[in-house]
């Protein structure tokens, strides 16, 4: 069977000592930085990206994937222990997880989160292995017109699922697209928007934008109102679940996984949306719905499964189509380009060992999470308590050294400062930085496909509607926008985002 031989190939790649080590290192670093206050997965990955540039491509990607789900798990840990979700997708986990911790069941909540994540990760990895090949086969038939429409659809979907004003989110996407065009034009070699600065001739490195907007911007925002973290318990014990607990979490994990896997493929807030949806479904159908909000174990299991499944399946569009569905995937695409790999369906065909190795390593990484994190909980607890005023100068320093090391250029450091300022202004104006980062990464590709599509069609703009796949995607994009603009649904959308 194809699937088995593919996974076998992946196992061969992922199980080499080097790659196992980088997977472990990634999961460890990701969790460690993820439990630290004030750093979400995007900032974590941006900060650790430069460290992977010298690695071979497969090791770099394995490590980055490990950092991603490590950071996710770290975020859940802080959500449960101190009621401060590190990222939006663990907001829901904090509701019941923290209540469990307050009742002395912190260990149980953490174990539930780990088990739910692992189960969801296993299922989602299988789904990824099953659905990636047919999707990539389909994508191999795509011409420039299809790609352009796909990118439009991806960007529209990310905007629709972003919180806040739709108009502003579209503006942020276009702003990102424009920033992505800075540098030499691929076709003519003309320098665009470089203000005659030689440092801008190659364009702006995406790490600079990500660290500035997500790293520095966040730091300033956190400093607005410094808070001290306090934790009710000093020691976490009782990690074991009993039979009754297992019975209670089994079905929620299954439902959460299904929901998360489906929503994770969607561009935009897949992980966040899925954990939120999973929680509200459980609350409605659970026998113990009265306990929700007061420490229901189902309220931890379902959203954790959903958010982890979503995190895994968000790799599907990234790996098969080369389209990022969230800022983290945008960073992964940037990392692939730096490694000399052009993301898209050809990755699977040209570099099967890299493709399948990465997929299998995700499952291994999820396994590491469970065996590594539960015993190490004492260390994480200590890291959670690191006071922020000691932490942020260190984060800033790591960002500055990381950005400087990209090209040994002090100009890049200044540019990061500028994006930090802009990131903070955006935060003040409720303008989401995530759509901007997606646009920034996609910008140059989108222009290239648009050019080629119109060149091939002899400048007939109708080409996007004449080709069936392309037309379908554009119609879907228009429908998605129309649906959000309908007054009744608009209200629902605003309500859905209000609860977090």
């Amino acid at each position, binding site marked *: 069977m194809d699937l088995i031989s593919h996974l076998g190939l992946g196992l061969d790649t992922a199980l080499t000592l080097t790659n196992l080590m980088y997977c472990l290192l990634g999961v460890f670093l990701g969790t460690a930085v993820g439990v630290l206050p004030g750093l979400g997965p995007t900032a974590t990955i941006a900060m650790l990206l430069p460290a992977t540039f010298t690695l071979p491509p497969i090791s770099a990607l394995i490590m980055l994937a490990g950092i991603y789900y490590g950071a996710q798990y770290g975020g859940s840990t802080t959500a449960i222990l101190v009621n401060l979700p590190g990222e939006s997708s663990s907001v829901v986990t904090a509701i019941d997880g923290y209540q469990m911790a307050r009742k002395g069941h912190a260990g149980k909540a953490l174990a539930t989160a780990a088990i739910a994540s692992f189960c969801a990760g296993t299922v989602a990895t299988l789904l990824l292995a099953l659905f990636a090949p047919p999707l990539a086969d389909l994508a191999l038939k795509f011409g420039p017109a299809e790609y352009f429409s796909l990118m439009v659809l991806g960007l529209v979907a990310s905007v629709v699922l972003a919180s806040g004003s739709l108009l502003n989110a579209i503006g942020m996407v276009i702003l990102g697209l424009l920033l992505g065009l800075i540098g030499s034009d691929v076709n003519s070699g003309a320098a665009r928007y470089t203000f005659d600065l030689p440092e801008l001739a190659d364009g702006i490195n995406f790490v600079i934008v990500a660290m500035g907007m997500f790293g520095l911007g966040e730091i300033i925002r956190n*400093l607005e109102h410094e808070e001290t973290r306090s934790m009710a318990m000093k020691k976490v014990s009782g990690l074991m679940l009993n039979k009754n607990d297992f019975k209670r979490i089994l079905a929620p994990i299954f439902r959460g996984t299904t929901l998360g896997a489906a929503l994770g493929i969607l561009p935009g807030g897949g992980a966040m949306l899925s954990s939120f949806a999973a929680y509200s479904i459980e609350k409605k159908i659970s026998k113990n719905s009265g306990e929700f909000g007061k420490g229901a174990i189902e309220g931890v299991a379902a959203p954790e499964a959903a958010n982890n499944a979503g995190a895994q399946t968000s790799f599907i569009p990234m790996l098969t189509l080369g389209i990022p569905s969230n800022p983290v995937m945008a960073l992964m695409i940037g990392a692939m380009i730096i490694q000399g790999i052009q993301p898209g369906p050809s990755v699977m065909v040209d570099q099967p060992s890299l493709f399948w190795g990465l997929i299998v390593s995700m499952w291994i990484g999820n396994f590491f999470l469970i065996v590594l994190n539960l015993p190490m909980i004492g260390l994480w607890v200590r890291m959670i308590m690191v006071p922020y005023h000691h932490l942020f100068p260190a984060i800033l320093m790591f960002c500055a050294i990381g950005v400087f090391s990209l090209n040994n250029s002090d100009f890049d450091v200044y540019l990061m400062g500028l994006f930090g300022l802009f990131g903070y202004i955006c935060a003040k104006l409720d303008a989401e930085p995530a759509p901007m980062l997606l646009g920034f990464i996609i910008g140059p590709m989108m222009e290239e496909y648009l050019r080629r599509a119109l060149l091939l069609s002899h400048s007939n703009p109708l080409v996007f509607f004449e080709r069936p796949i392309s037309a379908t995607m554009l119609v879907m994009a228009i429908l998605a926008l129309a649906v959000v603009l309908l007054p009744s649904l608009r209200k629902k959308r605003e309500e859905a985002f209000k609860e977090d």
Partner: protein
Amino acid sequence: MPSFIRHPKDFWTGIIFLFVGLAAVIIGRNYVMGTAGKMGPAYFPTVLGGLLALIGVAAVIRSFFRDGEPIGRFAARETLLIISAVVLFGFLIRGAGMVVGVFAIVILSARASQKFKWRAAILLAAGLAGFSVLVFVKLLGLPIPVFGPWFGA
């Protein structure tokens, strides 16, 4: 803030979009436009810039009719300290080297916190400088001098 602006956040977001969009269009006039079938370097950015400017105008107009929260306090002091710490690091790193650069960025940025204490900040900076020299310079071999040419090295 004049009273006809009812949604200040949207208003200023719109102004930023309008400004960037117009800048993209105006600067783009220096480049070759081309045609849809044979796009020059100016084509795509001009279209995008125009769109962005339109969205900006829409956001500004909308802010006159829709109510929104005021923009919260702008943490000017914190922003200034953080950004200048980063800029100072960039300025120092080549000439003065890793140790001075780390001390500068850590201590200057730490002052942005209300809990700043000299002793703790210096200890933190010393620890991070030691770590950076060990990991980044010695272990990872980044081409950053421990002490730069400004010290006559």
